[in-house]
């Protein structure tokens, strides 16, 4: 008696079990649902926060432009905060230096911005230790920039401002010369760059002059490392009379006074070079 009824129930149960397992079962389903409900709740929280923020900003706009703003210190304080941030942003855009106090005021990390023809290029950073005396700490300024000699020349100890100004000038000039070279390589493929050094203070270019594709070797020396213009321009040619011609003398003059890529563009236009 017992056997038959137990057998029947057991079989029935095992059948149900098989069916349930084959459908992936309610247990895994339930935990998946829990998982998804949790995720949905989290996302709703994020969305509500964003909506609240955006609404609040619109409200702030209204309050700021209203003729009768509510009393209290909060709004003026927020106003002051935004104003300070904006001024700091302006400094960041135009000042040339960003400075951050570090090590509880014992040092300043200075970021020197460089730009050429309006394009902002890389930023160099340098830590200036202030105590016990002003000293250059860690930095990422390339080794071919004469940092120590600049520090001595500008009396870093007594006038950190003068040192930073000189450093900025040198870095901007270096980056400017490098950018000019880049532009020459991009815009004037017919001019071959034979030689250039890391500091971009010596350049040797190969010009091809029409009509007979005469080769001229042009050496540019930038003796003043604080400048983007060469102090010396020298031309070499198999025909030694060519560089002495008035047209080529005038080209040398242009090369001394005009940024390289622009000078070459002018020379191409006037058919001095190909």
């Amino acid at each position, binding site marked *: 008696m017992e056997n038959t009824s137990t057998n029947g129930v057991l079989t029935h149960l095992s059948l149900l079990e098989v069916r349930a397992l084959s459908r992936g079962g309610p247990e895994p389903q339930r935990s998946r649902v829990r998982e998804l409900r949790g995720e949905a709740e989290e996302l709703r929280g994020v*969305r509500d926060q964003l909506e609240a923020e955006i609404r609040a900003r619109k409200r702030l706009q209204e309050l700021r432009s209203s003729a009768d703003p509510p009393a209290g210190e*909060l709004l003026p304080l*927020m106003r002051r905060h935004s104003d300070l941030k904006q001024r700091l942003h*302006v400094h960041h855009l*135009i000042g*040339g230096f960003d400075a951050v106090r570090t090590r509880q005021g014992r040092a300043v990390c200075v970021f020197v911005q460089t730009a050429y023809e*309006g394009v902002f290029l890389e930023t160099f950073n340098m830590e200036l230790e202030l105590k016990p005396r002003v000293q250059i700490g860690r930095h990422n300024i390339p080794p071919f920039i004469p940092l120590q000699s600049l520090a001595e020349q500008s009396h870093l100890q007594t006038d950190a401002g*003068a040192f*930073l100004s000189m450093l900025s000038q040198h870095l901007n000039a270096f980056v400017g010369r490098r950018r000019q070279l880049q532009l020459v390589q991009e815009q004037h493929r017919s001019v071959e760059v034979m030689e250039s050094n890391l500091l971009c203070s010596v350049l040797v270019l190969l010009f091809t002059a029409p009509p007979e594709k005469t080769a001229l070797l042009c050496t540019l020396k930038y003796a003043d490392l604080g400048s983007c213009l060469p102090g010396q321009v020298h031309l070499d040619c198999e025909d030694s009379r060519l560089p002495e011609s008035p047209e080529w003398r005038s080209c040398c003059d242009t090369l001394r006074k005009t940024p390289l890529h622009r000078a070459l563009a002018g020379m191409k236009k006037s058919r001095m070079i190909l």
Partner: protein
Amino acid sequence: MQEKTGEENGDEVKMLEGHIEDLRAEIASLQRQKEELNRDSMLHFEGAMLDALLIVGGQTQNRDEETVMFKLKEEVEELEKDLHLQTEMNGISVDDCKIKTLFSSGREWTHQVCVSLQCSQMVLQVDFQITETKVGRGSEKKIVGLNVVLDSDELQNFSGFLSRVEESLDLPLLFRTLRNFSDRCDERSRTFQHFQETFPSVASLPGGCRSEVMVLRRPELPGCVLFIHWAVEISTEGTVVPKINLLTKLPEQALERFPSQPVGGAAEAFQSLLRMLGAEGAVESVLRALVSPVGGRSI
């Protein structure tokens, strides 16, 4: 029963998954809105400012206004210190600034920035347009337009340089040059004042200590006056060059009596002194020569 739960669960899973997709899309759109607001005002709300913003928006739960104010005051103090440091570093004091968005898309935006500032005791209005383009994970900034108005007595001195800077869009050069110019003027002022104090009977600064001209005269020879003209010039490229000249003003009779060589050659001789001794040394030599008793060597 279990079958039904299986099906219900399946439906619920699908519904939840759909709901989550919708939420993600909503969040993405809100994020974009927020980013646009950030870019337009060039301000990000975070930390104490974000709490304050939400209080203003009416979201006061979990936010105690007093605590938020306290934190905000702390942040403002830190920002003031930062601004003070930046002002010193850059030699620029920002009086007023307005930033407006001219153009904004997903990857590129252009701002119009109008700043009135002081640099080296000169008042300037600098207006420029700056474009920022997203490149990879960073961005490239470029100044695309620049206009500088200088309100100063030195305007003539600067006009060539300012035109060049507006063309070349070289903002860093503008401020470097202004700082340089101010340093050279300070140097002149210090030197002139020093000599006025050291040789009070001979040297005077009728135009004040910031003037370009120092007047030298011997009390016994009232008609004979020497001028040290110390100009600070700015080339179009932004090079700051002090130019110092010695000028003489002598009465006709004196010119007749003295051979022109020492008198006419005074200006040139001064230039030699400058080359040998530098500005201070050269001026000091002239002053010492004037102070020495009559009959001493002429300049």
